[in-house]
């Protein structure tokens, strides 16, 4: 019985449909020019890679770029990559940019080298073992410097006992696996006898690796492990906000968003205390914690037009004070550095094709 109603209704539907189509006449119909566009959407089964390559080169230059760009890696570079992606997306709406914050090391090991992503952001240069892992999977990373960061040590706003700042020696004492002082008074006998609460990035993070390299030393005892480790910089800020006797470190960008919440520690490397800031990082005064930030496109991915175009776009805007410094909070590249990176990128793109 219901089936019968169905039948009548659908017949009725077609009658009405043809009536409506007739009424609106040609105004209601359009010439079908969407074949070329709708086809790839249809044909796409599982392999996203093969269709990406064709669409860009087909007709015209930049207007028809389409495909996926997958980016993972450092949480420090993540805001910068997001800012670039947001702008690139406005010019090329057909390009899908997917960003993930996994930490430099996590990104290389789990996403980039297995071939899952096109770019890996890193807040330290790629390690030998990671290059080996990539090579085993036929992934060739191309190192591009994108900005300079001032790795920032933060303490609670109420902390006044450390005075002007901390020396590199003191930082080393606090964070190294050797000694592992539990009380501030263990570091400096004039400081209060209160427990040090330490917050920092995890060992998947490039910030962690760079901190070891710059403060503790590669050959040294290593980073202490009895601290609150997180890949979310906000958690570090909240942790330090919550306790007068807390200390932590992170990229400058996150600190610059929260200058009221916590205070940055000036660092003395033998030439007096230097506050972390874009200026001191650029001038080279903020040592040893100013550091280069990188992104690593895979050479194979650069063969795809939309990936190459995005890499170029990023490099072309890497000197932009507005994006890199004002919006994100890092030091932009100089003109010379930018030219060097662009040359490197262009030759890599040529090789890839």
């Amino acid at each position: 019985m219901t089936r019968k109603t169905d039948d009548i209704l659908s017949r009725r539907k077609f009658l009405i449909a043809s009536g409506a189509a007739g009424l609106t006449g040609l105004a209601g119909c359009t010439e079908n020019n969407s074949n070329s566009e709708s086809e790839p959407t249809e044909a796409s089964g599982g392999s996203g890679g093969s269709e990406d390559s064709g669409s860009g080169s087909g007709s015209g230059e930049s207007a028809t770029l389409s495909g996926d760009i997958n980016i993972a890696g450092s949480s420090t570079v993540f805001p910068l990559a997001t800012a670039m992606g947001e702008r690139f997306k406005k010019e090329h709406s057909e390009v899908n940019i997917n960003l993930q914050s996994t930490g430099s090391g996590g990104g290389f090991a789990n996403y980039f080298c297995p071939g899952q992503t096109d770019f890996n952001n890193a807040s330290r240069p790629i390690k030998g073992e990671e290059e080996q892992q990539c090579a085993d999977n036929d992934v060739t990373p191309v190192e591009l410097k994108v900005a300079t960061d001032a790795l920032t040590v933060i303490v609670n706003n109420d902390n006044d006992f450390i005075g002007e700042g901390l020396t590199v020696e003191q930082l080393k004492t606090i964070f190294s696996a050797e000694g592992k002082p539990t009380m501030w008074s263990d570091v400096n006998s004039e400081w209060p006898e209160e427990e040090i609460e330490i917050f920092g990035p995890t060992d998947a993070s490039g910030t962690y690796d760079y901190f070891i390299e710059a403060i503790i030393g590669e050959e040294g005892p290593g980073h202490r492990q009895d601290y609150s480790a997180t890949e979310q910089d906000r958690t570090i800020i909240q942790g330090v906000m919550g306790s007068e006797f807390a200390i932590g470190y992170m990229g400058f960008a996150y600190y610059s968003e929260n200058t009221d919440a916590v205070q940055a520690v000036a660092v003395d490397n033998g030439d007096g205390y230097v506050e972390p800031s874009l200026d001191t990082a650029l001038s080279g005064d903020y040592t040893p914690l100013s550091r280069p930030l990188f992104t690593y496109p895979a050479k194979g991915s650069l063969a795809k037009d939309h990936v190459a175009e995005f890499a170029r776009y990023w490099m072309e805007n890497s000197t932009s004070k507005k994006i890199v410094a004002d919006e994100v909070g890092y030091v932009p590249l100089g003109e010379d550095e930018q030219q060097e990176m662009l040359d490197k990128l262009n030759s890599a793109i040529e090789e890839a094709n």
Partner: protein
Amino acid sequence: MATEQDSSYAQGFGQVSRTAGLIFRYLLLAATMFGIVTLAVLLVYVANDAIQPLTADAGWHLTFFLTLVLPTILVGGALYRRNREALKLGGMVVGALLVSLMFSGGVAIVFIDIIPPLTGFSYAVGLVVAVAGTVLLTKYERQIPFTARVAATGLLFFLSLFGVPGYFHSIPELVQKAPVVPTDWIILTLVLGGVTALVVGQYIARVREDNKAGLAAGASALVLTALGAIVGPLVGIDANALVVVTAVSFVPTAAYAGGSVITREELKPGLVFAATVIVGALVGAVAVDALGFAGPQAWTDWQFLTSSHSGSAENAGLYPAIGGSILLMVTVAALSFPLGVGAAVYLEEYAPDNRFTRFIDVNISNLAGVPSVVYGLLGLGVFVTYLGQATGTVLIGGATLALLILPIVIISSREAIRSVPNDMRQASYGMGATRWQTVRNVVLPEAFPGILTGTILALGRAIGETAPLIMIGAPNVLFNLPTELSSKVSAMPLQVYAWSSLFASEDFYTKAVPAGVVVLLAVLLAMNSIAIVLRNKYESET
């Protein structure tokens, strides 16, 4: 006081103190209230952040109070005293309109932005052809052996939808290559309006017990939908969007209201209540616009719903995440519903009571309690590492979430099937029906509302899950809607999580995050309300 009196009476018999009982009772009350009040405070706090009602002009509040709140209270109060059933209907109509409006938004995302209308149309045509063929085959049910009929039906669907590459074009292919095709709004009217017209027509035909009335209702539903496309551009609304909203929201709500009144005359005043609320809201909106009162500076606004992530919290939006959540839910439902219901039917109706089924029984209950992050690891291990799929795609996310809610779907479906009275089964057997006929014609129809309710509630859990998506490597930020099963996907809770953790600025924390939470909760409430309405409706019917 009462206790004192009682104890003085009872003095001669020795004393039983009621204090302990009283304390216990109020402790229980406190325990009940504690959680609810805490949650309510949190929600009010978040909603206040997201909507900021206090930033609106006093005139804005006054206007809406006069046009919407006051008449609603007056009409509602009057109805409450005289005709509570009618008030209930009025409330249902308003609720149905709100919920269906939200759903029409979802449908619009899917059928306009994710699936190009022409593609959708081509598949709809393919399906209709195949279904028509099947109906034709059923007419010759007795002449053709069962196996041949099943094979023919399968072949029909396959040929019509997929064709044989190189030999035989599939219907979608033919439609997409046609030299002249209908414009988008006509396609949407035919496909969505057609489905609505079918449902509305059947509903009216049933309540009026008159096929002609059903036909008329269906036809007018279709005409109304088409009208949407014609009226839309005149008032500055996109024709496609209005067609979708009309087909998914306005027409069904109107049909529901009309149908209820047809069956029960005395409920008519309820429509007055619904009209008061709807007209009041519209008049209020027009009035504040005309008088120039500024509304609240809500963060949950149109811009937030329709734009993608941005570096600044003011411009950030949830759109790709909303689309992602919808696609994930479609995938999850498509995977978990047949598997879950199938398992439930087997376990309840077929499985022998032995050690093996008891073992499965216990384990399904255990699986329902396994933390979601473990399912995330399972998805990562099985789909990404073992099967070598790309990380974070719609298919993998959907499959992982489907695994997550599968035990819940099974348990609630079994519950529903078990609640079908055994007498009905026996009666069916008594009439000579086979077990398969009994399950198909008696048990499943009877248990279906319960199964549906359970599944919707389970989907409500899946839509809020974050951990499995993080585990399978779904991107924290993306700017486009996912358009295929193989594209990367984000979801609403994941986007909120990314904002609250990766974007450390206070701005994101006070603007984008509460706005996202409010949208997520609204969607969740809408889904749950459907489940609750379904349950109440069928509980009262049986």
